[in-house]
Structure formats: structure tokens, C-alpha cells
């Protein structure tokens, strides 16, 4: 066991994947000497060489499209998108190529590409540096989407993503890069599945589902609710596509109440899919409609206002009150 920050845990996972398989190649902007703007790839170019860690020209479609070609050639490219808001120039290559080539070629060609995306807000950045674009990808058939919430998962799941023969979007909650945690660097990533959700905190009154950056916030909310006599079960999805609905369903069958929280805009966000699917799966166990506590339907705001947009402990607790029918901010509203 070692104590690593979230960021260093990803670095360690990348290093191990590169050690294990010479076909693993990193590509991205500023990932070489600089080690990336978040230093996630720090030291890797020095240790593995410039032919394994490629500083690419400044063009995301180009990075993604050449990664596709490298995958055709048998490589396992790991692409870094510098910030969430810069993934869109690569959208066409992701949606029409990365996601579809396996289907297009009837299984003949594999696309084992990992796309690392530092995502989410709360770091005081200007426009395009704090977005949560995951729902675009969870709606895209052919992709897998995961997001770790702690150093151990970060370490394990990056290796699982790289060894997956399917393309994987790996969303890194950038505001948690400095969080420290215990990491078992000897653990075998193949021993677990990146698709399983995890019950973070057990509880019996309300199921609170989240992922990535809001997992710590949700855990804090559970503690606060506990102080208030409400037992909240927190689930960290880990995999966003597919979602491990069995785990969520089992919890909701127990609690009868579901709150979902994410930073992304509400309309069409992942919360909608979770609410709809869980309602389908356990309608008769629900005591209240699933409640969504999310970002608003706005472009990510400038930093002085970002904490109004981002769900926080209080807003989550308000959602918990709502699902429990306790007094809350919308009490008395004709709905």
C-alpha cells in the first residue's frame, strides 16, 4: 500500500500499463516534457521515450484520428484531452470512428483506445475548462464511459480501460487530483470489473447515486443526513456506460427513494437515464419520484458563480429532504 494523490495514482497506473504492454502509447498536447498541464504524465516520456509518449500537434481531431490509425496497426493508444471543453473538435472522430469501427468491420478491427478527460468544475477556471460532457458519450453506442472517484479506483480503472478491447472514455474529476488515498500498487486490475458500481456508504432511507467529483460531496451529505437521523446509502457508479443498474436497483428496492446528483446540466443529463431506468425497474418500490440535483441548463458559468451552479452538500440535502417529503425548498409548490 502506498499513499498517492489521485493524479499520481493515474500516473502509476499508466506506468504499469506501459510496462506491461509495449503497444500502449500515450498521445496528447503537452504530455511529454511538461507532463501535461496537470502533470498526470509526469516523467513518462523521460522513462519510456518520445516514441511512447507523443507530444502531438495542437489538433484534437488529429490526435483522435491518428489514434484510430494506430489502433488499426495494433497499438493501444491512450489519448489525453487537455480539458473537457476541448474534446469537441474530436467529437466526429470519436462518434463516427472510434465508436463505430468495430461494428462497421463486423468485429474484424478492435479500437482499444482510452480517452482520458480531466472534467468537471470547481477549480476557478475560465470558460471551457470545467465542463461535464459525459452524457454525450454515454448516449453514443460503441463507447464505454467510466469515472473514478478515488486514488485506488483511478489506479485500477485506468489499467482496466487500457486493457479493454473496446474504446473507453475515462473521465478524471480534476478538482480531486490532489486528494490523497491508499493505493495497492500490486493489485491485479483484472481481478475486478470496471463496470461494477460501489456502495460507498450503506444506508436504508435514501439511495444517493453519483460519480466522479461529487462522490466525496455525497459522502459528506450522507454523514450530515445521518446526524439528522436520515440514513443515506451512497453509490459511486464508477461506470457511466453501461451503468450497473443491478446495484442501484438493489439499493432502491431497499430504500424506496432515489436522489441523483451530477455537475452536468440537468436536461438530458445522466440523471435522466438513471431516473428513467430505475423507475422502469422498480416502480412499485418507489415512494417518491427520483430527485435530480444537478447543474443548471446553462453554459458553465464564470468562476465567481460556479458554486451556485455546482451541486453542493446543502443542495444535495435539500434533494434528500425532497425525496423524503420533508420540508424543503420546493415545499408547497404545486408540482
Amino acid at each position, binding site marked *: 500500500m502506498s499513499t498517492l494523490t489521485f493524479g499520481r495514482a493515474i500516473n502509476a497506473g499508466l506506468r504499469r500499463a506501459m510496462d506491461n504492454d509495449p503497444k500502449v502509447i500515450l498521445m496528447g498536447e503537452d504530455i511529454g516534457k511538461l507532463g501535461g498541464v496537470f502533470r498526470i504524465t509526469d516523467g513518462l516520456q523521460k522513462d519510456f521515450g518520445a516514441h511512447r509518449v507523443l507530444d502531438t500537434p495542437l489538433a484534437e481531431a488529429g490526435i483522435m*484520428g*491518428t489514434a484510430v490509425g*494506430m489502433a*488499426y496497426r*495494433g497499438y493501444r493508444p491512450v489519448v489525453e484531452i487537455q480539458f473537457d471543453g476541448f474534446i469537441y473538435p474530436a467529437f466526429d472522430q470519436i462518434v463516427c470512428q472510434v465508436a463505430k469501427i468495430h461494428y462497421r468491420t463486423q468485429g474484424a478491427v478492435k479500437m482499444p483506445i482510452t480517452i482520458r478527460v480531466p472534467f468537471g468544475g470547481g477549480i476557478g477556471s475560465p470558460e471551457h475548462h470545467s465542463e461535464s460532457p459525459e452524457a454525450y458519450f454515454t448516449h453514443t453506442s460503441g463507447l464505454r464511459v467510466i469515472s473514478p472517484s478515488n486514488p485506488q479506483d483511478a489506479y485500477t480503472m485506468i489499467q482496466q480501460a487500457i486493457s479493454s478491447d*473496446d474504446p473507453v472514455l475515462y473521465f478524471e474529476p480534476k478538482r480531486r487530483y490532489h486528494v490523497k488515498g491508499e493505493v495497492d500498487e500490486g493489485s491485479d486490475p483484472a481481478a475486478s470489473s470496471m463496470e461494477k458500481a460501489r456502495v460507498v456508504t450503506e444506508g436504508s432511507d435514501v439511495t444517493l447515486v453519483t460519480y466522479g467529483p461529487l462522490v466525496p460531496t455525497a459522502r459528506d451529505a450522507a454523514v450530515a443526513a445521518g446526524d439528522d437521523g436520515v440514513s443515506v446509502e451512497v453509490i459511486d457508479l464508477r461506470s457511466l456506460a453501461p451503468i450497473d443498474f443491478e446495484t442501484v436497483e438493489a439499493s432502491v428496492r431497499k430504500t424506496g427513494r432515489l436522489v441523483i446528483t451530477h455537475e452536468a446540466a440537468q436536461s438530458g443529463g445522466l440523471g435522466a437515464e438513471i431516473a428513467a431506468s430505475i423507475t422502469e425497474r422498480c416502480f412499485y418500490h418507489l415512494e417518491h419520484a427520483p430527485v435530480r440535483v444537478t447543474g443548471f441548463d446553462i453554459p458553465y458559468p464564470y468562476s465567481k458563480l460556479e458554486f451556485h451552479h455546482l451541486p453542493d452538500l446543502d443542495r444535495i440535502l435539500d434533494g434528500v429532504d425532497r425525496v423524503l417529503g420533508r420540508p424543503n425548498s420546493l415545499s408547497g409548490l404545486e408540482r
Partner: protein
Amino acid sequence: MALKNIESVPGGPGETGSGLIQLITADGVRVPEPAYDALVADIDGAALQGLYEDMVVVRRIDSEATALQRQGELALWPPLLGQEAAQIGSGRALRSDDFVFSSYRENAVAYCRGVDLTDILRVWRGNASSGWDPYAINMATPQVIIGAQTLHATGYAMGILNDGDDAVAVTYFGDGATSQGDVNEAMVFAASFQAPVIFFCQNNHWAISEPVGLQAHVPIANRAPGFGIPSVRVDGNDVLACLAVTRQALARARSGGGPTFIEAVTYRMGPHTTADDPTRYRDANELEDWAAKDPLKRLEAHLGSLGLFDEAFTAAVKAKADAVAAELRAGCLGMAEPAPSDVFKHVYSTPNSWLDRQQDHYERYLSSFADSASSDGSS
């Protein structure tokens, strides 16, 4: 000054006059081209006859497929009529371990790669998303997103470099494609990594209804040097010249010289696809002008001048073309129909809980028909 579409530009990308590499004129005369003659010194009469046969066969594949479309056996077909020399000349220059990333119109290149004829038609019959296993013939299946494949070729070439191999990636695309960001980014990456990739642009003068002058105001071959990539403009209707310039580019790539851009100036003599009606936008005279430069005719004339175009030869070629056409047609008509649950196959290479559930539900749905009524044969 006014905002308008500019359709043709003097000295622009539609012109064929100057700086075009040509080894056989439109009249079939072999003209010397010192920088390229040595590259095709091995192409003797028999080899020329072989190239001619190839062109006849692919033209026949094209017309047979067009006929199959007219007869309702194919949903769509993108003819390559007029572009045989560009595709055969370049396609025949490749080694089997080179890798091709093309668009949808390169059926003649696929033929050179040794594709199973039926495989060419699968996608156009609606029986598959694509026709063949790319690794079986080292050619990716047709790319529909204009220009996307140029990046794939560049990335593949980067992989070749990393493997220390001397294979080459070759990407085919059209004049219209040169406007796409992807194609330009591919040149940036290819130059930056000095990747062994050939950009083979068939300037067939049209992108559906848009003339090439709308995409560019100077010859397309001029584009590449600004990215640090050497380029050449070749008569795309001259099979020998296309072979020569492709061999030159391959040699450069194999020896660590990096990428080359080839503009093959040719002409789309047919419609964009069988769904297109070029009379809405194209002058009949233009077609006539280009008919005079037909790639097959000029090789006929040249072979004739060498005494190699006798009846025995033409009969053999015709027999080959007939046989290929028959095989193509039989392959088309005999294609097996897909099963409904094939829609769920190969989306992922490992089980996916969302999709597995949907498949399970859909299969239950289908079998509910089998239960409740007589089977409709769809399950």
C-alpha cells in the same frame, strides 16, 4: 466586390495544362519524362497489357454494379467511371503489406488488393456496414465521412514508424475532401512525425454538384508543400504516370523520407452515385471534353502503336471481364440475408449489460410473434 460562389478559376484547380506529369498522352503517345521514366522501366508490353486488363475489368465491375442498382439489387452505387487509371496505376504500385485507407469510390483499388468481389457489394446491397476484413487485404473498408480516413492512414503510418517497418500507408480521397479540417490536420501530423503515408487525391473535378473551383483557387497539389510535404500533380487518366508517381512516393516513404501528396487530375464521368442527376448542374460539353481523354482509350491507342492490341488480346480481356461480372452478379444475388439479432453483434467486443438486456428483450419480442401467430420468419 460581392459575395458569390466562384466556380472556375483561371489556372485554378480545374485546369489541366501546366505542371502535370504525363507519360502517355491522350492520343496514346508515350512521351519522355526524365524524372519518372526509370521508375517504370520494368513495365514492358505484357505489364501494360495487364494494366489495361485491370482497367477494363474494373470498368466492367462498375457498369455491372450500376446495372444491379438499376435492377433493384443494390440500394446505391458510386461509379468510378473515368477514374480507372488513377486507381489502377496507384493500386498496382503497392506492396501487399502496405495499408490502404480509402473513401467509398475506390473499388478499383480494392480490386488491386485482391478483394473478394462479393465483398465489394455487401455494403451497397445493405447487407453489411462494410464488406471485408481489413486485415485480409490490408485495406480499410470504405469511409463515408469525408476526409476522416486520411488521419487513420497517418496514424497507421506512425505505427509503422514505431515498428521500424518499411510498409507504407496510402490514403485516397477526393478534391472536395481537401476542404475538410481532418485532411489538413492529417498533413500536419504526417509532416510533424515524418510518417510514411501517401496522400492520394483524385481530383475528379466534382464533389457531388460542386465544381473543384469552389473548394480551391489554386491547384490542389500546391497545398502540401506549405505543410512541408512534397507533392506532385499527375495526369490521373494516364495509368503509367500514376504508377510512376506512386512508386516514387512509396520509395520515399520506405526510405524514411516521409509523406508525399499526389494529386491525380481526372474526371468523374458518371453521376456522384446512382442517386445523383448530374444534368442538373453539369455542362454536357465538359463531359465530352473529358471523354476524349478517357484512360482506357489512350492505353488502347498506345498498345495499338506497340502492336499489342490484337484480337486475341481483346478477346481474352473481354472474357476475363465477363467472368468477373458474372461472379460479381452471382455473388450479389447469392448473398445471405442477415438475421435480426445481428443488429446487436460487434457493437462491443465484450458483453455489455445495457445492450444484452435490449437484445434479450427484443428476442422475447420477436418470439412473442412466433408464439401468438405463425412465425413471420424474422426470428
